[in-house]
């Protein structure tokens, strides 16, 4: 599975939506479950799943799906 599909699948599961509900511009707060707790859980799962570490300076700029996919791609290069 490509990074994009995998990230979207994790988000869909965490936020209790379907992958079709998620677009590249979906951002924090767009789904009721994507609150601060949901965001923490998401970023933890993404770090575990892709075996990467995200530092505060990486995390601070993450706002939408696109940002998250890009940082994962960059870290797994």
């Amino acid at each position, binding site marked *: 599975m490509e990074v994009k599909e995998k990230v979207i699948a994790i988000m869909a599961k965490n936020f209790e939506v379907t992958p079709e509900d998620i677009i590249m511009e979906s951002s924090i707060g767009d789904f*009721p479950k994507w609150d601060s707790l949901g965001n923490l859980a998401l970023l933890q799962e993404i770090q575990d799943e892709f075996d990467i570490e995200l530092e505060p300076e990486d995390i601070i700029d*993450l706002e939408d799906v696109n940002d998250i996919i890009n940082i994962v791609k960059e870290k797994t290069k």
Partner: protein
Amino acid sequence: MVILEALHNHAQHIPAKVALIEGSREVTYAALWDNIVRAANYFSGIAERGSKVMLSADKSVDFVFAYFGAHLGGMTTIPVDPSVNELRLQRILDSATPVGIWGKLHAGSAGREVKPFPVLDNADALTHDYVMPSEYDVADILFTTGTTGLPKGVMLTQRNELASAVNINHFIGNTSNDIELLALPISHSFGLGRLRCMLLQGATIDLLGSFASMKKFFREMDDRAITGFGMVPASWSYIHKMSGERLGNYAAQLKYIEIGSAPMSMADKHLLMELLPRTRICMHYGLTEASRSAFICFGESMDHLDSIGRPTPGVEIKIFAEDGSEVACGSEGELCVKGDNVCSAYWGDAAEEYAASFFCGYFRTGDWGYQDSEGYFHLISRKKELINVGGKKLSPLEVEEVIDAMEGVSESACVGVKDDVMGEVVKAFVVRTSESVTSDDVIATVRSKLEGYKVPASVKFVDNLPKTASGKLQRLLLK
């Protein structure tokens, strides 16, 4: 005087001043008042004065119009969290019987119709012949989360809400020049209180969905030149985890931060003071029934950071023993509060039932603590959460502090469980970050630091601990 009168005055005297910001939308005090009157018109056309209306407290200007509009129409509002679960919603509806629900509810509506907030832009001309509510009118019924059982409706009059706002503004030192970022939920006393404080003062409030997006949070800090905000300790943990120490870049800009709702670690208090040495970092102690009864400003009370501070201006606190007699300084007892901030009644409780909530005119908070010789109050525990081991009472916090400091532990909660011999013994619920931590390790660590009766008789490892939306631990749910 009621808060609405202050809003009316601001519309007259500072009409062009921005009162509310939501994204790119700005609402001046003149427009705010117009929309409040239009909303009052709308609600008056639906129900009689004295009716109750339930509002989904989403952080939008439409909610603010509806909230104050309902008050101006003579209604009592019941603000609820937009994500309220159906069971809780049903219980509140059964108990409070509002005439309708407005706003958006995300988790179902218990079969009831939910109307959108009234569209006011094209509403009729301002024909409403409004009458200001009296200071004794019930403004809001706030249903507390409750550690167990049914939600309890706290009835706050216009007088209660004005008194709280005046007290808070006095302590924090808010002025009309402030621009506050409101990222707290506003279905609760803390967030809704911040909204009232700012508007009473003629200041500006920027409604931000939540702290979830740090990018958005810092963008608003920059773009709107934010001078202060309110947060719960869990928000700070999140901000710190997500952005490191970047908040320190705003040291010259941030005049104040109000913290409340749950205890904050000493390490976090010191870190915040280090990052923001010139900011008034004020932490409150209060409950829905007696909003912000005490305050501590970290920088001004460096030697008392383990306390909840001193009574807020306009509030008195005394410590009473269980028989209702006042205890001497240094002795433990129940914290009891007197002041116009204390709620007026519990919804559905008879006057004599409510009277049992007082000792000599002081509202019994259910919190156990003491006052030190310098006038600072110290909280030991919720009275109901004290653990009684063979007649010796202990606070779960003391044991949790030791367990939480262990490597491989993220947090813990302790409760008293029945024991045939001791009456109660300590049971610890522990969230681990490392599986290598065992029950024996937890017990041995506590034994090495605390008295024998405080050592947990049993330890259970759990994935998470029950908490309220504002991050308050709900220990009684673990019993």
